[in-house]
């Protein structure tokens, strides 16, 4: 990976060192010294969340915000469309944003191409306060390239009441066989409900989520050799998914299919292996089930890892207002007051060591805020899941691991899904599907690390 593309005028060594030494306190002075500046931020799925962040920036740091105009744009409805828009902007060189939200899975492609600014010096003052997982999210191949904003740990959501009635203790479920035995016990007790769900096309995030458990597993090495056939963990994940599907113990739908949401609401699904962001969705899916859902890290057989790593903010190497952009992102995500405010607004748990205590204290002491309706309070996570709901999420962060994604991770995922679906449907044997994966990756992608 090259960082030579960073323009000297903006990231010249003396300034970088100065910034590194002075830390965030110096940043507002830079912005104001340069007069009023404008930055553009790209996010996906609408601009509302980032508008809230801009308002928080203006509220918490009025002096700094006074000299910055922040424009939020949403050039895609999901992260894949952001990468697409970013590629086009890089190709044309026009209308490059100053900050881009990505999932970590998308970062290596742009990092390998030298399209991202090296944030090492700017991030230095904040490094010590980041939890380990967040630090992993901020770097790629030894270089700091991102401001971490959200860790996506592996969290198991389960119906406490139904699990208890079936005599299942999530903590006692450690192996894959334990998990399937628990699913059987659950079904025996609750014939119209399932402990999990899976359809014909398992949701795309499960693949890297499961593979990220093993630190040595990667799709291709840096020489461009694909390891799908030689690494047994790929076969293991395929077998797990097939067992989920063919066991008859899972509700027949994939995540975010039309039946998924009502199945939660009607109690047909009583558990799901997912990520901490589900705390945002589940209360809305099943608003009448407040107090009946519990959280735990995934069972030990696949506890480590993360979902797509997590969300990060990157700054293009050729962005015009790098320092101002970094200042905005760091104020919101890397300062204790910004991070707590972010958690209160969005539910994203803090990624800072120094803010954890305050977050847990405030969560434990939280009462119904004035002015919100019964319906709003019913789906507030702290009320819906209980005051201790953050602890299992923080516990999942202890097992947080970022998969070593290749620059062509999206293409690899498409191929993995296609062949695994054929295996699950019985169209191919496991060996045929793995061989087809290896062949497709080799012929269609070639060397992921070769430009």
């Amino acid at each position, binding site marked *: 990976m090259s960082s030579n593309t960073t323009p000297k005028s903006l990231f010249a060594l003396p300034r970088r060192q100065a910034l590194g030494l002075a830390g965030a306190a110096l940043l507002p002075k830079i912005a104001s010294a340069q007069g009023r500046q404008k930055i553009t931020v790209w996010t996906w799925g609408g601009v509302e969340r980032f508008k809230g962040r801009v308002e928080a920036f203006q509220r918490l740091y009025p002096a700094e915000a006074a000299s910055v105009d922040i424009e939020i744009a949403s050039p895609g*409805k*999901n*992260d*894949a*469309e952001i*990468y*697409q828009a970013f*590629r*086009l902007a*890089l*190709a044309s060189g026009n209308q490059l944003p100053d900050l881009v939200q990505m999932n970590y899975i998308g970062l290596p*492609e742009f990092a390998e*191409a030298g*399209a991202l600014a090296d944030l090492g010096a700017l991030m230095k003052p904040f490094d010590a306060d980041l939890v380990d997982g967040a630090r992993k999210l901020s770097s790629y191949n030894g270089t700091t390239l991102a401001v971490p904003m959200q860790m996506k740990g592996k969290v198991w959501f389960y119906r406490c009441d139904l699990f208890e009635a079936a005599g299942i203790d999530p903590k006692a479920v450690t192996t894959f066989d334990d998990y399937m035995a628990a699913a059987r016990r659950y079904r025996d007790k609750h014939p119209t409900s399932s402990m999990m769900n899976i*359809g*014909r*096309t398992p*949701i*795309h995030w499960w693949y890297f989520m499961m593979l990220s458990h093993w630190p040595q597993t990667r799709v291709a090495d840096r020489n461009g050799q694909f390891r799908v056939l030689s690494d047994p963990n790929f076969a293991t994940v395929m077998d797990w998914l097939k067992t989920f599907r063919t066991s008859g113990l899972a509700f*027949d*739908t*994939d*995540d*975010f*299919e*039309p*039946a998924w949401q*009502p*199945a939660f609401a*009607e109690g*047909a699904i009583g558990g799901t292996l997912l990520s901490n962001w589900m705390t945002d969705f589940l209360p809305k899916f099943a608003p009448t089930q407040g107090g009946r859902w519990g959280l735990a890290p995934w069972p030990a057989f696949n506890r480590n890892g993360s979902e797509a790593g997590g969300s990060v903010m990157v700054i293009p190497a050729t962005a015009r207002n790098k320092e101002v952009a970094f200042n905005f992102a760091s104020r919101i995500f890397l300062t204790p007051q910004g991070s707590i405010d972010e958690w209160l607004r969005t539910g994203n748990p803090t990624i800072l060591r120094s803010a954890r205590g305050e977050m847990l204290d405030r969560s434990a002491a939280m009462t119904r805020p004035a002015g919100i309706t019964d319906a709003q309070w019913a789906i507030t996570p702290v009320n819906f899941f209980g005051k201790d709901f953050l602890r299992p999420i923080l516990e999942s962060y202890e097992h947080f691991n970022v998969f070593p994604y290749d*620059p*062509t991770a*999206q*293409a690899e995922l*498409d191929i993995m*899904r*296609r062949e695994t*679906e054929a295996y699950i*449907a019985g169209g191919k044997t496991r060996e045929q599907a793995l061989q*087809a994966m290896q062949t*497709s990756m080799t*012929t*269609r*992608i*070639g060397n992921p690390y070769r*430009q």
Partner: protein
Amino acid sequence: MSKQRRATGLGHALFAAPFLISFIGLFLGPACYALYLSFTRYRGFGVARFVGLENYSVILAYDAFWTMLGNTLFYWVAHAVPMMAIALGLAIIVQRRAVAWTQTFKTLVFLPQILASVATALLFQTFFGTHYGLLDRMLGFDTPWLTDPDLARWTVVAVLIWRSTGYWFIVFLAGLTTISPEIDEAASIDGAGAWRRLWHITLPLMRPTLVFAVVVDAIVTLRLFAEPNVLLGRAGALAPTSVAPLLNLVVEQMRAGLFGAAAATGWLLFALIAALTFILFRLMRERAA
């Protein structure tokens, strides 16, 4: 060349210029660039590396390409035949005033056409939803309309028929008005029944409109994308391969940063559409002759 002829030529050129400029700038230029890219490995930015015909050979050897091509052809054939028959039948019914309230009838038939294709697909998603869909609830079944590939393909066909019938109904109605009622009357006086008049007068005279409809509908359907993906995709992912149209492969490769392969697939799709259009025109012309 006289001054007047030069001025006339300049006038022609000026009149043609807006089209020519937009055609070259917005279609021909990008198409040629895409053709060049199809011989390269290109991530959408940075360097495009020339790889010759590799993208084409890899795609043609890729089983998903053939699955998606099969799906696309299925969607075209399975919806075109009933849809054309329904649209023509409705047009004839209205033309012969076999229904009252013809203006209301026309509006109702055309209504699905003005709905956005995404909205239509979402509507059908609610209708066909497995376990909790309207249809399953009404019938008391638990049919995986949207998840079993064999059934899911037919739900896409249902959407296509529902959506496109209104458009071709209006086109056919316009075509029917070009047929002189005197011919029909003469045949009727000669003792021809309704079916014989339809078969021997209406349909032969409607042939140019039918050829146009079949060809244009084929072109539109071979580039199908929104309906199957909104109906059968979820959580930002495209529809699964077993039910995906060919354009999915183009989009999937672009999303994955495989721009050279995406361009090659696009050109293969173009070749397919061109070949099919040529064959359809030839077939229709031969039958007409």
